[in-house]
C-alpha cells in the first residue's frame, strides 16, 4: 500500500477531501490489532467520528480498488446515518469510481438502488436498480443478494 497505493495522486486527493487518515504500525503498537479486532495487515477501517465502523478491508488493494473501497465506505456511512440524499449522490460517485471493478461495481449498484429507494420511498426505484444489477452482473455476489426479487 505504501509503495503504490498511497503515493497515487488520486488516492492522496480523495483521502484529503473526505477522510482524516490515522495509521498504526503494528510492530510498534501491537495492541491495536486487538483494539480493532484484526489479525491481518494491511487492515483498512472506515469509521465516523463517533467510532462507528462503516467498512473494513483486509489485504493489499491497488489504487483503483482502494478508491472503490473508500467511495463505498462513504455511501455506507450516509446510509447508516439515514442521510439518503447524500447516499444517492455518493452512490453515483461510487458507480463512476468502481466502473470496471467486477467486485465493487455491482456492490455500488446494489447500494445506489437502496439509496434511491430510501430517499424516495418508492420501491419501484429499488426494483429498477436491482433488475439492472441482475442483468449487468448476474454472477456477482450482489446480484445473488437481490435475486429474490425475481420471485
Amino acid at each position, binding site marked *: *500500500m*505504501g509503495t503504490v497505493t*498511497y*503515493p497515487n495522486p488520486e488516492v492522496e486527493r480523495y483521502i484529503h477531501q*473526505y477522510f*482524516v487518515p490515522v495509521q498504526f504500525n*503494528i510492530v510498534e503498537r501491537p495492541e491495536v490489532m486487538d483494539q480493532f479486532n484484526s489479525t491481518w495487515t494491511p487492515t483498512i477501517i*472506515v469509521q465516523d*467520528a*463517533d467510532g462507528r465502523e462503516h467498512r473494513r478491508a483486509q489485504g493489499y488493494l491497488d489504487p483503483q480498488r482502494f478508491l472503490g473501497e473508500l467511495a463505498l465506505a462513504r455511501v455506507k456511512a450516509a446510509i447508516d446515518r439515514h442521510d439518503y440524499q447524500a447516499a444517492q449522490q455518493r452512490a453515483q460517485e461510487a458507480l463512476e469510481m468502481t466502473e470496471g471493478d467486477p467486485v465493487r461495481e455491482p456492490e455500488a449498484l446494489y447500494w445506489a438502488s437502496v439509496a434511491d429507494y430510501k430517499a424516495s420511498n418508492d420501491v419501484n426505484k429499488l426494483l429498477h436498480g436491482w433488475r439492472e444489477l441482475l442483468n449487468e452482473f448476474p454472477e456477482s455476489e450482489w446480484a445473488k443478494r437481490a435475486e429474490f426479487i425475481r420471485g
Partner: protein
Amino acid sequence: MAGENIPWRHSLEEARNEARQQNKLVLIDLFNPN
C-alpha cells in the same frame, strides 16, 4: 513510513476530533512495515 505524502495522524482521538470538526470520516490503516 508508508504513504509519506499522506498526513497520517497517529492518535485515534485526534483523528476523531478532526473528523468531527471537518465533517469527515476516519480512515484507519493498520500496517506491518516488515
